[in-house]
């Protein structure tokens, strides 16, 4: 029986098969790239705020402790965003005429809150607690990045579940001594030394690798 298809059609069929693999792969890659892109994750995207507050200036150059403003970070799930009164403790004395600070003064004068744009947001079905992380030797910069070098605050991680699990699976890679938790310039030891330190701290602080769903979802 003569062949129905010419030999060249073999090429077409191969092209279709391999093409399909390549196209699906490319599509997957494209989706992955979009999902990991700053456009989607908001990672490293600077947010415009009503007042261009600079963590670089306050936490870095001036060396104000994180807890001066984020007062509830050691006591509550929510680290706390400072009330206008906290800003005014200094700014009623310095830069009292700076036009940049007018929204702060206006807020204090009119008793109206400043509406900050949220930088680090988790979905509503995720229940993150700051106090326990801080108590167990997870530093501020571990999640929030080099905050002391950010003129405008940005998200330092993707805040995806996989990003959380990186640490929840291997806390030893990220832990630091409690005394260094609020140090924005903390420089972790490299490689094996960090693992060694992390394991020691895990035992000392009773850190568990919690991976059950209800740890964060309920």
């Amino acid at each position, binding site marked *: 029986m003569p062949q129905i298809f010419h030999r060249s059609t073999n090429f077409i069929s191969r092209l279709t098969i391999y093409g399909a693999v390549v196209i699906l792969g490319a599509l997957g890659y494209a989706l992955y790239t979009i999902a990991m892109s700053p456009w989607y994750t908001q990672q490293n995207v600077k947010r415009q705020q009503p007042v261009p507050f600079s963590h670089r200036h306050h936490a870095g150059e001036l060396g104000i402790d994180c807890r001066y403003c984020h007062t509830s970070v050691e006591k509550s799930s*929510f680290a706390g965003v400072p009330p*206008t009164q906290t800003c005014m403790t200094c700014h009623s004395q310095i830069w009292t005429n700076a036009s940049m600070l007018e929204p702060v003064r206006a807020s204090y004068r009119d008793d109206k809150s400043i509406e900050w744009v949220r930088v680090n947001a988790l979905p509503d079905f995720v229940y993150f607690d700051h106090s326990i992380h801080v108590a167990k030797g997870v530093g501020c910069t571990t999640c929030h990045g080099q905050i002391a070098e950010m003129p405008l605050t940005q998200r330092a991680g993707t805040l995806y579940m996989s990003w959380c699990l990186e640490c929840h699976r291997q806390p030893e890679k990220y832990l630091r001594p409690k005394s260094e938790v609020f140090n924005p310039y903390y420089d972790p030891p490299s490689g094996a030394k960090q693992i060694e330190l992390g394991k020691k701290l895990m035992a000392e602080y009773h850190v568990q690798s919690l991976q059950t769903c209800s740890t964060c979802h309920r």
Partner: protein
Amino acid sequence: MSEDSHLKNSIDLVAARAKLSGAGAPRLWQSLEQLSGTPQFQEFSEHEFPPSAGKGNSEINRRDVLKLMAASAALTGLSACTKLPTEKIVPYVRPPEEILAGRPLFYATSLFQAGVATGVLVESHTGRPTKIEGNPEHPGSLGSSDIFNQAAILNFWDPDRSQAVVYDGRLSTWSDFAASMGNARTLKGAGMRILTKTITSPTLGAQLRALLAQLPEAKWHQYEVSSGDSVREGARLAFGRPVNTVYHFDQADVIVSLDADFLTCGAGHVRYARDFGTRRDLSAGPASKLNRLYVAESMPTATGAVSDHRLPVRSADIDDLARQLAAAAGVGVPPSANASSKIPAAWVGAVGRDLAAHRGSSIVIAGEHQPPLVHALAHAINASLGNVGKTVVYTESIEASPVNQLESLRELVNDLNAGQVDFLVILGGNPVYDAPADFDFATAMQKAKLRVHSGLYHDETAELCHWHAPAAHSLESWSDGRAFDGTVGIVQPLIAPLYDGHSAHEVVALFTADAGKTGHELVRNFWQSQRPEKDKAFEALWETSLHDGLVSGTSLPAISVAPHADFMSLGRTEATSGDPSAIEVVFRPDPSVGDGEFSNNSWLQELPKPITRLTWDNAIMMGPATAQQLGVTTGDYLTLTLGGRRVDAGAYLVPGHADNSVTLHLGFGRARGGSVGTGPGFNSYLLRTSSAPWIAPGAQITKTGKKYAFASTQQQYNIDLDGHPVEEESSAAVGQGGEHGRDLVRIATMEEFSKDPSFAQNPDDENTKGLTIYPGYKYDSYAWGMSIDLNRCVGCNACVIACQSENNIAVVGKDQVARGRAMHWIRIDTYFRGNLDNPEMYYEPLPCMQCENAPCEYVCPVGATTHNAEGLNDMTYNRCVGTRYCSNNCPYKVRRFNFYLYSDYKTPSLYGMRNPNVTVRSRGVMEKCTYCVQRINAAKIRSEEENRLIRDGEIITACQSACPTEAIVFGNINDPTSKVAKLKAQTRDYGLLEDLNTRPRTTYLARVRNPNPEIHS
């Protein structure tokens, strides 16, 4: 429901009786429908136990299933592709003291039922009250609460609450209202009448007395449906004045309830349930000293169901029973005019002997709906038995002005009809709806020239008033009030009034020299004037009282009173009974919505009532014998005529209801009840007259031929196989435990328990233990478990509402309940044992069992329900795609599925009410009890921060916290010293369906009855 579903629901009582008397009689049964095998019951049970499961269904083939699965998988994936919206953070300008975002605060305050205060702790998240718990320091609560206190949070956030001052149908303002009321002062109160509900608030009492002093021609009336008129008048009859009675159920070995549902209704019921529970404790094994409870009542109540001997008797015949008991106790009484009642003499004799054997350690308590004479008789019996001063203590009345409220209202109506009232002020209450029908209050009221109403809702009464001012809820106002023993609780606001509401204190102040003062000033100034402490000492006392929720040392001292020798001759001999074959109508506040105060509360509307498990309705409740006599069955639409007044309503058969008696619950059929309260049920107030407010003889019942569909959960989630059409092989396969059926409720008498303390252990449970193909879990830190003591549970439903409030559980509506879609995470299964007319009743609260070998976990295709290191079955809502495999595979039927978008995402005022620590579930998501994992996590975080282990009792689940009898105990079973581990070590401990090798973490302590050997029921 459609017409044919009514037809399916036809109960065959003859078949039911035959089944119970036959050889294959089920040990326990749940409903008349089950016994008579109605098609509706078959349908429900086929959904739970499909006889042909696994045999394939020809309508859908494998390819279609795969296609649908692929499509839904693709769509599910797509729907996840959303970017998080940009959010704002809005911090305070000047931070208030104490508030830490993310950490709740608790404030002590009080809530009222029929004027009686109960202490509560209210959880507040950044200023929003979200959850109500009992106040452990308060004598009326001891940390527990009830359905009404739990559900008050929904009333507070209710979007239907009245939101503005209204004058003549138009919006007005509080200042206009205040100015207008101020003018009334110039009239010296001529023609002025004030109508309030029961008042125990010392401040408001003093204010009203001051008002009457300043406006001497004004008059103050009180009216409330459940005001306890009989209790007051009974005390007046016996002692000459309305003293207050406090019972000590923890001291009582024998309790006789004459139609009193003292565990779920009336002053002090939360405390009474606690005290009662302590005497149902069996931790000392057979040596424990159980109390014994006798209940005589017509409609089965929560209290009747936990009794050791329940006597179904017409309410009117209680009078005869009381006289017989009094005679047995040595009180000289003439026999009842109704001596033809069918009180079994043997029963009375045995109870009388039991009482006599427990002089000084017994209680006879009369129901608040029984006539005053029965109360006086109960007082006389207690005095004769030497109980006074031991189990029964008298104090002065807790009320500001104890009056006969029915007579008070009658006086007001007479004045209105005589045209003597120019100015009527109604503070709270809804007399147009709930006043006795013969008063025709709506017509009488409109004879007043100016009518003013202050209330939480713009209700039936507000509609007929010129002025309506929104009242402030107890959670947003200052006040005070007395508990059942007189202890004063200070009511403090959790939040500024949501809708410019003002408390009764502020309204009354408008008519006096105090006009314009705030509630805070009025209450504080009153207490300052009452106390010897001054300045700083008073400040300290005030702060302490606010912190504790009560003013210490204010409980009323015991007084010594003795019953009049000749009270019988003083009492009006009520001619209520008459012909024993005539049908009496018994009116009762609804177990869920009360007298109508809570009819707009959807949690309470949807709450299955004790015993009947009926939701969203009231009915003409009757016993099987009366139903047979009338040829009536559940769902028949009847016409009930009583003294020329009539209502049409559906019949509902209740096993154990007294014969020749029907019970109508009040609180339904509202005309202006709000978006929830308007609609359900029928208005039984239309039949209720001042001459027979609670028990009315001579009802005529006829059938209309129409049908009425009820939504009861009694036949749903049925996990007992008895009566199910399960095929032989499959029933063997699920390991049906032989002759005992599934043995869900294990019961013994005290005698049997003494002989065999391990009666609750079934060797079949052990057969499958250890059989698993999966590697076992190791629980090396905490292992959470729960123990539920069936001997303590009184079926009050407090746990159900507490769970609903804590876990943001949605309501679904009557139609969805009828389809078996109610969302409660914990349900109270109710079982009956014995004959239809007087069965024993058993409760079994059923939350998720948190199985160690959980059938639900294996079948979830997306890993949404997983096992946790501490033994919980985690439920991850955001992962759930709604296959419902888990629910199909759950032998306990505790999983609930959001078939529609049940959660209200649209009403802004409900946002504030929700627990911020629990996800609000959307459509297509499965949900279930998680042992309040949010509370576990909070405690874990606290303990880890403090470098210690969680202490026993540190985590209290919502159901446990609400439970008035401490029947539910939660804790770490890995710690042998924990309370829960000790309870599980008792010989009464057993798990449900343990032969399925599910290894449930929730286990039960078997029920032990303490019957009187003299009585064979």
